[in-house]
């Protein structure tokens, strides 16, 4: 049962057996790729169906039995949604809220992550517990007071009312991703910068941040996606039609012509437009996103 014995027995296999092995390998490969293909279809089919629907005209969408392919191809749904003020505002609002929240969260989060990764300071464990707590925090537990206070301060329908909660709830993933990146950077570079006369803070933003640029970028993508997808606060703190974010707009979508049949063509088109930036980000940066997402979980 020792290793060398096995190698010998494998080498002395008769020819017929080896070709049998090859056939088994082929079957295994076929089964393997069948399962993999099934999994890919499982992941993509609903999205593909939405895309196909969005490219159909009203008669093709509401045909019974279903016609699967968009023939004839019809871009009217996309024209219609972009002619809606509400939808154009929604895209703009989501962009403003998600990018501001991402930027602020990155600044606040990178300072905090650096402190966690490099410095010894009191209450560090308390801070880590606080960050973990925020990652699991149910937004519903604070929505009442925030709603009343934002009303009192005149912040409803103000971007700040969404940016602040988004910054708070994106902080955990920002801090985790960046702490992992900062810890992986060699401390010697900062030390030599300090020997050359830099202060600790200077060493941080002159040496560490530029070196951690890939990490900062990964964090930025993750935060942006999270803020872009936020719904609970956006639905609650914004009521003006010109202040709705994309998620709220699509949830309340009524279409260009309210008297018409439920506007599935426009809804699917709007879904595609809202999702497209995220899907493109994901496809371009899949490696980084996956390593950013899983780093904390498996190293923990």
């Amino acid at each position: 049962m020792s290793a060398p014995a096995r190698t010998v027995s494998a080498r002395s296999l008769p020819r017929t057996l080896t070709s049998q092995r090859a056939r088994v390998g082929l079957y295994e490969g076929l089964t393997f790729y069948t399962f993999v293909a099934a999994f890919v279809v499982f992941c993509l089919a609903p999205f593909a169906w939405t895309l196909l629907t969005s490219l159909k005209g009203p008669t093709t969408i509401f045909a019974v039995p279903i016609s699967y392919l968009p023939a004839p191809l019809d871009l009217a749904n996309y024209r219609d949604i972009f002619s809606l003020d509400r939808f154009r505002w929604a895209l703009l609002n989501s962009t403003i809220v998600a990018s501001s929240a991402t930027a602020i969260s990155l600044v606040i989060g990178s300072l905090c992550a650096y402190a966690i990764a490099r410095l010894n300071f009191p209450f560090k464990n308390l801070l880590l517990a606080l960050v973990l707590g925020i990652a699991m925090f149910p937004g519903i537990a604070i929505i009442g007071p925030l709603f009343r206070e934002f009303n009192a301060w005149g912040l409803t329908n103000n971007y700040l009312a969404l940016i602040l909660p988004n910054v708070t709830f994106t902080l955990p993933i920002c801090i985790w991703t960046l702490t992992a990146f900062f810890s992986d950077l060699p401390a010697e570079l900062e030390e030599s910068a300090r020997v050359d006369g830099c202060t600790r803070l200077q060493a941080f933003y002159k040496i560490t941040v530029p070196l951690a640029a890939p990490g900062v970028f990964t964090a930025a993508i993750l935060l942006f996606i999270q803020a872009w997808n936020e719904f609970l606060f956006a639905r609650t703190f914004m009521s003006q039609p010109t202040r709705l974010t994309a998620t709220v707009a699509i949830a309340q979508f009524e279409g260009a012509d309210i008297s018409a049949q439920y506007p599935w063509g426009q809804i699917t088109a709007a879904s595609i437009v809202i999702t497209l930036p995220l899907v493109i980000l994901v496809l371009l940066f899949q490696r980084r996103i996956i390593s950013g997402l899983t780093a904390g979980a498996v190293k923990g």
Partner: protein
Amino acid sequence: MLAIWPRRSTQEHAEARLGLLMAAPAIATILLIAIIPLAQTIGDSLFHINLKFEDAPRPFVGLDNYVSALSDDSWFNSLRITTVVSVASVVVELVLGMLIALLINRSFRGRGIVRASVLVPWALTTVVSAKMWAWIYDGRYGVVNDVLIRLGLIDQPIIFLVRPELTIWAMIAAEIWKTTPFMALLLLAGLQLIPHELYEATALDGASRWQAFWRVTLPLLRPTILVALLFRTIDAVRMFDLPRVLTNGGPGKSTETVVLYTYNTFFTSLNFGYGSTLAVMTFLIVVLVSFVYIKVLGAPTQGARR
């Protein structure tokens, strides 16, 4: 040596001060937007506050709201639904995610495609996914019905989102679709940390692949599994977007989750006192679930996700 001591201690002091200073903005944000409002919610939960009537008195009622909650059928209904949805979706996600992770834990051609397609459901906005599934489940033009009819499994289309006994499972299926791929990704990352030599060693000991899975893979993967389960369970307990957009809790109250019921108490009934009570109870449920995972099962607490 003696000369160095005082200098080092001032240095340590400076380091501690800088550390606190750098963490201060994050701590302040968390205090301002999460901790203080949470305290306010707890405070509000002890009052009768109804925003329908601007000038109505807001008397202090102590724990009355909590007593009401304990005899509130709607709340228990929502608790039951949240439990069913959480347990069913998390269990299926774990099993499916594990199978997928084991399957793709090797190098093969087309790995990049698999990885990219895994991320699509994850990145998709939940609200968009809910609308998408509403369309897929549509009683007349839905693709699910069309496929089932073509396969000869049913004669008449099923109107999924109108029959309570089906709606909740339709919702769970949509949730599973969105989160399983990510679960697989997380488990795959954990699998890749298990050194290959361990499997070779167990194979030499004559263990079957099945035994190797139970004796090597599962124990070593335990921390990853626990982190994934912790965050997925908490997410399921907090579920709001999907039921709000897919069914709005209906038909009847058959998909009204705890958070959706609480939200409606706040913003439909405008009952901010009782709403705060339900919000505090939701918070306590989350605390309880994470306590069980972290303290009882020993989940590592430095996790990332989403």
